[in-house]
């Protein structure tokens, strides 16, 4: 917490400025702004349809905002194609786990390194020395991450058929392989039981501290967000409802109304 507060004075790592997204006639996001600072765990909460996933998809460049800008370390990400987001240090996981199902765990994690390496098909086919060096570098990092997330026992296994919790860890490993500065986690607690959520929360905190990664957590699970986030942004109907520490947001009358309904209704 102290670390995060210290960072407030510096320029934000990621700035969401007045972002709006319109689908046909529906306004999915309406002028949302917030900053993320280095080392923060930022929780993005809100009821279903609040615009969390829309915002998430803007950050990973799957959607193009109709208004506003998103700045990563001061420069806009909106001119970048989707495959050039990983290289500036934005990594992500997916809501229902999007792994490469027919490939081994270790290959999935290796693919995480794609944006940090350069080889071409000719030198790959000929296994030129440069390719061997690249592969050695990939294997070194991948081995370290597989150790870190305790995936050694399943490293050679094909992903399809692994337990859901393990697949989530593989996805996290794949995202970490790209050495992201910001890790976007889309409902990581979905489908996990009470105890697993607890373990996950610890793991996210550990990743932040050990690897100095800033985390954006989009989550339904209030308990998880409130226990690990330094800063919380609440959305409803595409607008920012409240922002602040978990305690502040929890006591915000608008947030309470959005989650529990108002007295009048």
């Amino acid at each position, binding site marked *: 917490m102290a670390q995060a507060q210290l960072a407030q004075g510096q320029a934000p790592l990621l700035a969401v400025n007045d972002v709006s997204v319109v689908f046909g006639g529906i306004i999915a996001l309406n002028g949302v702004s917030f900053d993320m600072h280095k080392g923060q765990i930022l929780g993005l909460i809100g009821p279903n349809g609040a615009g969390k996933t829309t915002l998430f998809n803007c950050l990973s460049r799957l959607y193009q905002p109709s208004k506003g800008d998103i700045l990563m370390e001061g420069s806009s990400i909106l001119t970048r194609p989707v495959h050039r987001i990983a290289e500036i240090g934005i990594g992500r996981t997916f809501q229902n786990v999007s792994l490469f199902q027919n490939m081994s765990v270790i290959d999935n994690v290796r693919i995480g390194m794609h944006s940090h390496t350069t080889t071409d098909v000719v030198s790959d086919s000929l296994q030129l020395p440069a390719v061997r060096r690249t592969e050695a570098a990939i294997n070194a990092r991948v081995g370290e991450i597989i150790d870190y997330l305790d995936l050694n026992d399943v490293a050679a296994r094909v992903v399809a058929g692994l337990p859901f919790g393990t697949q989530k860890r593989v996805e996290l490993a794949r995202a970490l392989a*790209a050495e992201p500065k910001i890790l976007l986690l889309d409902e990581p607690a979905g489908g996990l039981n009470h105890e697993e959520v607890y373990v996950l929360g610890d793991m996210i905190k550990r990743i932040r501290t050990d690897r100095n990664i800033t985390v954006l957590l989009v989550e339904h699970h209030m308990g998880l967000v409130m226990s690990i986030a330094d800063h919380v942004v609440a959305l409803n109907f595409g607008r920012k409802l409240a922002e602040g520490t978990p305690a502040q947001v929890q006591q915000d009358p608008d947030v309470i109304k959005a989650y529990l309904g108002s007295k009048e209704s």
Partner: protein
Amino acid sequence: MTTAHETAPAATASKKAAAAAAPSMNIARVASLITLALLLLVPLFLKNFYIFQMTQWLIYAIALLALNILTGGSGQFSLGQSAFYAVGAYTAAVMMEILGVNYALTLPVAGLICFVFGFLFGLPALRLSGVYLALATFALAVAMPQVLKLHFFESWTGGVQGLVIIKPDPPEFLKTIGLKVSQDMWLYYFTLVVGIGIYIASVNLLASRSGRAMMAIRDNQIAASAMGIDVPLYKTLAFGISAGITGVAGALGAIAVAFVAPDSYTIQLAIALFLGMVIGGVGWLPGSLAGAAFIVFVPNIAESISKGLSGAIFGIILIVIIFLVPHGARQVAYMAQHLIGKIGKSS
């Protein structure tokens, strides 16, 4: 990028993985050594006609390998491989007969031309996937024989008549060192060397960064692009590489048969190649040999059983195979490996 302390856990991790995969790796290695030995030795004891058939087999295996990289590797379907095969064959024929170029030099040119052709075809194909892509490539296969017949190209392609090629002789030095090698045998070993080279390059490709990118696209495009993979680039590259290798196979085919004509490269060839890939096991490169054996030898077997009903018998054999082993030779190899592993454990 790497520091010394990072390499240590990686080494242990890869060692653990290697230890787990060791027995299957050994079986695979022994199997490939036996296959290689058979490929090298068997032709020495065969008549020229059978050697010629084995050459055909290898050539189709190369074409199947190419299709396997496209479909098994990058997840794109093609019923148009015969078009790339034809372009490769005609490139070799025109270069040898009209420009008087040495046959060995035609292969890289055929590969390059077909790579460009495939890459360019891959660009519009990006908009299509699955069965729609298969249909678009189907159109290519249907159009190709007619394009080759066009009057406009006749001075080069020989039109409907096609081109006759003079079969290359084995190099002189073999005679001087006292080896008597027939044309067919020479072409067989020439094809074998080219084929092994392409096989090794393909295995390397699929085991490296580019190959993993293609397989990632096959499994999940959105996740692939989130990992920084340029999806359109790798999809078109896969098309180009597949077409290029198919072109080399086509050139070898033209040289071995010593003749090219438009009607040798109809949609039937494309379907045969597709069939061969399924029989061999989609995405399993060694299966190309099994798939090619099926499309070269099974029609002959069917014909030897009944001349009038050879098509029906071919169909029955095909249905039986698909029914028993839907994943083709890959499944057979997997079962055999399991069996050998069990025997090895119990003894």
